[in-house]
């Protein structure tokens, strides 16, 4: 067929400054160096807590984004996978003396099984029905964990002995934890980036954008959704184990709370769904903000930190619906004096 005229502008760039699919950009390298530098130099002990939580939640946001951003499986139940990972590695360590270095992978595997089960149970549900089912699924897991006291310690929770040892993955310095969390973040980021440029990643985009068209293209939508949820759950489970090793205490009410599930979904939403850099930016903005607001305002004006936090979220959602990642791209094209 003869081509109709096109007004599409040709964009060619030799190397990428801002993050984009398929390449590692200058921005990403600089951001990584800044993170690594922060770990090596170290901040004050209280700020170190914020830094390592920021890394951990960036990794968790990326893990959520694989299901929610790429496959379109918006989940408000990821705290279940977080809890499954944390409990698996902790129970294996406390009761059977298996080092968390191995237990983490067992937790990932079990979380993946839970994720696959959730995707299969909700196979026919879409939109709000799917979202509500994920919320209910996590509640079932939470109540189950609360009542299975012989395994999980019930409402009293489980404590990991605060004795530093490499074998038990317990460290005395916050720097070690920060390095561990940064390692987790970089790993999940690398998985995300490679998924973005693989056939399987594209299958997920297709299922998210139009399931009928994906089906007609020879893609099995149920298999795609199940695999995406399992991968996302496994990575979330690993994050849960790491959190348990840092916090040294876990109880179902916190580990599998809906608040935590919302947090996992919120960070990528603020940062930019379906992008690799978005969830990272979301966590880098929101996690320190919520931690610092809580520590500064928590005692003098209880609850005020939530007001400020929520107001900030509303502003981001209103003015940057594509998230921080989209805002970053917009900024790069901003020419105020031309």
């Amino acid at each position, binding site marked *: *067929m*003869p*081509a*109709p*005229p*096109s007004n*599409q502008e*040709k*964009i060619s760039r030799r190397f990428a400054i801002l993050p984009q699919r398929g390449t590692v950009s200058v921005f990403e390298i600089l951001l990584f160096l800044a993170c690594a530098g922060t770990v090596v130099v170290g901040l004050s002990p209280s700020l170190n807590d914020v830094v390592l939580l920021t890394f951990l939640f960036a990794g968790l946001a990326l893990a959520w984004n694989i299901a929610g951003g790429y496959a379109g499986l918006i989940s408000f139940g990821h705290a279940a996978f977080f809890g499954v990972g944390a409990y698996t590695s902790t129970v294996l360590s406390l009761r059977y003396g298996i080092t968390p270095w191995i237990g983490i992978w067992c937790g990932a595997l079990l979380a993946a099984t839970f994720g696959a089960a959730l995707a299969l149970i909700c196979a026919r549900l879409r939109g709000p029905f799917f979202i509500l089912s994920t919320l209910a699924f996590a509640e079932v897991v939470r109540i189950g964990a609360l009542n299975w006291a012989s395994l999980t310690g019930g409402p009293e929770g489980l404590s990991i002995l605060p004795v530093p040892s490499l074998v038990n993955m317990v460290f005395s310095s916050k720097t070690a934890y920060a390095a561990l969390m940064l390692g987790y973040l970089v790993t999940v980021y690398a998985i995300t980036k490679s998924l973005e*440029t*693989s*056939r399987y990643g*594209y*299958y997920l*985009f*297709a299922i*998210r*954008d*139009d399931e*009928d*068209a*994906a*089906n*007609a*293209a*020879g*893609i*099995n*939508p149920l298999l795609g959704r199940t695999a995406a949820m399992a991968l996302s759950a496994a990575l979330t489970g690993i994050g849960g184990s790491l959190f348990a090793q840092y916090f040294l205490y876990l109880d179902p009410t916190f580990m599998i709370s809906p608040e935590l599930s919302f947090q996992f979904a919120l960070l990528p939403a603020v940062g930019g769904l*379906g992008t690799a850099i978005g969830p990272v930016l979301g966590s880098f903005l929101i996690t320190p903000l919520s931690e610092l607001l809580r520590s500064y305002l928590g005692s003098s004006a209880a609850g005020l930190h939530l007001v400020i936090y929520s107001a900030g979220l509303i502003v981001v959602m209103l003015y940057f619906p594509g998230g921080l990642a989209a805002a970053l791209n917009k900024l790069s094209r901003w020419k105020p004096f031309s």
Partner: protein
Amino acid sequence: MSALLEVRGICRAFDSLMAVKEVSFDVEEGELLGLIGPNGAGKSTLFNLIAGVLPPTSGQIVFAGQTITGWKPYQVARVGVARTFQIPKPYRQLSVIENVMLTAFRHERTLAGARKFAEATLADVGLADYSGASVNTLTVGLLKRLEVARALAMRPKLVLFDEIMAGLTPAEVGVMTAFVAGLPARGITVVWVEHVLYAIMKTADRIIVLNRGEIIAAGLPSVMARDPAVVKAYLGEEFILA
């Protein structure tokens, strides 16, 4: 020689309504078969039965010697049956070329290979200049071309076209008709559901006319245009006399 696609006594009921009743026909390899009929004749249902979107109530579908009755759409696609959608269903967040790459993945396992094949397919349908564009910038006519490109990028043995002319300007219809007419020579068998009759009557080797879920006539396009049963189904009783 057996036919590429054999449809044998296929029925589909929606509650008490028989949308497709005992429909049987063969499609030979390299044939361009037109499927026409007034609104509600069961064309889309028949189309969806072949593509695996709906399971038939009874009957059998055989493709390339393999019974594909009751298969899922992705399974039907994997043995070489591509389809387009009447209302285009592009992947909204992907670029034009990525839309086409997703079907090219059937035979090109690498991203680079799929991109190369998709580029050639886009050039084929005249969308080369839009390869990097967002699908949201495309007009209806261009979206229909994208549907065709996606189907062809799968390198199918059989392609099912569902009203690819609807919403096109007369000039675009002419271009698209000539393109479709050239497909059998490239080894692609075509089953084509269409409402724009002048396009399909000019192009098809054979026409099957459906009405109320049944085949009422089948044969050469020139013969079908004068068939009293066909004219009656489309226009009503009194036009036969005129």
